[in-house]
């Protein structure tokens, strides 16, 4: 009798595990399909052409970077809250900013404002070496563990002050700022390699901002170009 009971329980557990695994697989497949649809509609459809960017956007599971109760919204084209008044940017903006910095394997990228880690994951998926700074310790810690769990080895997460950049890892081929600032921090410009590009939203904090592309030429001179209007959370300085 006990043997029969044990076998029954074992069989039930096995079925349950298989059912859960099947459910997980179904979920992954569903999200994967939605991810492809998102790229086709909101990214390719809006003019993003860079193959490395498109590959990365199709590969990175955005739903892993949003709160569990918002996963069904993960592949819609709008920002989502991730706590502490911060947001994960809308997919189109992530793709746009990625394409602008011309991602390629081996390039060194500084990201200011890790947030959920999604942008860092996208950059890492293009083959870049990513150094990302986050001012909120809870976000920095959760992004670090999430990126490790998902296997993004090319990302180094630091809890720190974005205004001062990352001098020991400089210079960078690209600097990407995902938090708005009322001015362009001199340290970030200094740490940009000649020939490099920086994308930063500037303008008013918590109002509408505009993406600025800062290009440093071979002689070290910088020029700017206004890109498109966006909305970001502000760049915060100082560890917390």
């Amino acid at each position, binding site marked *: 009798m006990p043997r029969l009971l044990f076998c029954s329980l074992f069989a039930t557990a096995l079925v349950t595990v298989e059912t859960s695994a099947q459910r997980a697989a179904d979920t992954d497949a569903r999200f994967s399909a939605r991810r492809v649809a998102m790229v086709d509609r909101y990214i390719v459809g809006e003019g993003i052409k860079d193959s490395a960017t498109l590959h990365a956007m199709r590969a990175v599971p955005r739903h892993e970077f949003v709160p569990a109760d918002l996963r069904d919204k993960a592949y819609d084209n709008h920002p989502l809250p991730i706590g502490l008044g911060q947001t994960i940017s809308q997919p189109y903006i992530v793709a746009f900013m990625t394409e602008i910095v011309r991602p390629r394997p081996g390039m060194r990228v500084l990201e200011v404002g890790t947030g959920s880690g999604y942008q860092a994951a996208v950059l890492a998926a293009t083959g870049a070496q990513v150094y990302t700074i986050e001012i909120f310790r809870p976000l920095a810690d959760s992004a670090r563990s999430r990126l490790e769990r998902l296997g993004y080895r090319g990302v180094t997460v630091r809890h720190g002050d974005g205004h001062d950049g990352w001098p020991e890892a400089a210079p960078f081929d690209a600097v990407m700022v995902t938090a708005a600032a009322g001015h362009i921090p001199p340290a970030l410009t200094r740490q940009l390699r000649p020939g490099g590009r920086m994308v930063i939203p500037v303008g008013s904090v918590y109002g509408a901002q505009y993406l600025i592309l800062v290009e440093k030429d071979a002689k070290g001179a910088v*020029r700017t170009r206004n890109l498109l209007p966006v909305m970001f959370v502000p760049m915060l300085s100082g560890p917390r």
Partner: protein
Amino acid sequence: MTVRAVAVGCLAAASLLFEILLIRVFAVEHFHHVAYMAIGVAMLGIGASGTVVAALGGTTTSAAQRWFAPAALATAVSLVVTPVVLHRIALDLTQLTWSATQWLRLGFVYVLLALPFALGALAMLLAITLEHTRPGWIYGAGFLGSAGGALLSVVVLWFLDPTRALAIPALIAALGAAMIAWSGARSTGRFAVAALTLALTSLVVVRPLWRVAVSPYKALPQVEAYPDARRVAERLSPLGWVVAVQAPAFRYAPGLSLAYEGDLPPQTALFVDGELAGAVTHWATNEPDRGAMEVLRWLPLALPYALGGRLRVLVLGAGAGMEVWAALAHGARRVVAVEVNSALIDATTDLAQLPTRATTAAQIDWIAGDARSVVARTRERFDLITLVPGGGITGAAGGLHALNEDFMHTTDAYADYLQRLTSDGVLAVTRWASEPPRSSVRVILAIAEAMRRVRPAATQNGIVVARSWGTTTVLAKPAGFSEADLDRLRTWAASRQVDLDWFPGASSPEAQYNIPDEPTLVYAARAAVAHPDSARRFADEYPFAVAPASDARPYPHRFLRAGSLRTFLRSGSASWLPFAEWGYIALLATLAQSVLLAGVFIVIPAALHSRRSRGPSESLLPVVAYFAAIGLGYMAAEIAVIQQLTLLLGHPVYAVAGVLASILMCSGAGSMWSDRVAPRHATRVGAALGGALAVLAAVLLALVHHFQPLPFAVRGVAAATLLVPVAFAMGMMFPLGLRGIAGDHGKRIAWAWSSNGFASVVGAPLAALIAVEAGSQMLLVVAAAVYLLAGLIARGSVVGHSWSWPRSRLLAVFDRAASARHPR
């Protein structure tokens, strides 16, 4: 009867105070445009109360007697319950574009906010029913109470933070309810309930049951989350709740040059209603020092000082003093700093020593006041008059304050500033860049137009446009820029990586440092200086509304055209739209909501009732039309007059409160006096009002400009002279109309109340829209037309004390005429 009137006054005061405080609370917890939208819908509660009563068959005197006190008590209770429940709803408006749950919550908030207004209006409606032979007395008491509420709002916002301030309306309403309970038929239960309500509302003032929390997406909670951040100062004022936060990691250097390689000094962040408003910089020394203040030379505001010789400087919108320090760092010997928010000056003084005559060698005067008033009255001349964008610049960039009137940036203002310059003086206006350019284009066009008024010959060689990565600065020099001036500007601009998009002699300047998609500012400047017609054509053809603002249409931060909306949606650039003009979109949304709900709650039921009525004498349409007309007319006239007299009296808050209170008091007096006037005179009053408002439309702005330079006492008398007779007559129309239907009073009073309430609510956003699109003069014309219409409706309708359909009057006239031709 007197107690009843005083109680109604308390309820009216509580309602208006609650409305004003809700706007402040919503502005802190969300953003300003949300406040207008939510309050606009909440006010529909006023009209809804009348519709509900009418649907129930109207009220009798006995029913009014029975329910008046309970309605007043319920109003007081709802003024406590509403904020408590409101602050337990997790509303995140940033999720409206994708979350159906947020829409449901917003809808619930609308209903919740409407409740106290509906109950308060019901109480007043019942009071009017009780006093149907003298409705002017009660209606006038309501006006006077509202006036008190308007004045009280200024006092309350000086001394109480938004959390505690929100408890005051309930206390006032409870006082009114207690008066009713104590003076009416003695009932122990009612007496006890009233006393308990008064005690509860008093307790809530001491210990509020809610807490106003700043939106997590605003700058204040973000900066307060910095390491080692601490709140170091807090000031209250009707202009906003000012908070100062010190955080070692906070830095503020708006538009800092890309070529700057130094450090930023320690700063304390300043916030108004949770939004960043600037920073107090803690210089190493109070005296201007090259080393300590080097960073000031790398900000856009330093451009005009490159010309040299800026010894006498006027700073408009001085904020936390950065521009004043910049003037001192560049050698100014005389600085006048004007800042309208005195709480901001006080907070800055708490934190760091402001440069004053006592602390520096320069002669410095700080003036807490309105910039236009200061400029109008001063006889000083300045080498430089500078206007920089506000600290947080959230409104200008996000369109959140698109509908805020701003008299500092109209063509008339720029002309005034130009006339206060010395012979070599310069006006400098800096705005944040936007994509596509909007505010910069408007400034260029406005300055060119102002130059044509002041010194037409200087337009061609008196304007320079400089553009950095984030800002645009327009310089205007009536004496014209010499070659030496231009050399100095070019040298400064090159070192700061600023492009000179326009200067005298420019043909097609090429951007070197900050590459735009299109050289829009070049095109704008070229059109602006060439000829007024080319400037006008450029403004007409530009996708955004960039024509210069004027004192008649003082909306320099509003750029959205309805046509642009369609273009953006068609072009797939929908991502631009959310950041274009939230304020204007919110106004359209409020108007649409109000019209829809007014249609559902008043027009359709009134039309259905008319179809079911037994005859033309019972038709509600004249009732609805008359009271809707005077509701619309009142709002239109009120908004237009407040806007223009604010410019005359200076100070956006005190002037608005004072003018609003004056209008309401005079209207109250007019209401009370109307009980002595026969209802048939509504026609004459309507006609007189139409004529007076039409005259005001023609002359008011000219009178404002004429009186502006005079002492405040003279301006006050002028304002009162213009205001009193019009407001008095406006107050008469409602009670005269009510007595015209007193013979069938129960249901018709309810319909009158409902239609007037809804028309007032629709009238507010509609009047704002007319003001934005066509100006305050047109708004006064509309008000005149509407009051004339009301007078005509009254003429065709009032017979003795009964209200009958105009057709029966016409038939009677024809009958008499026929009898006269064919005597029997």
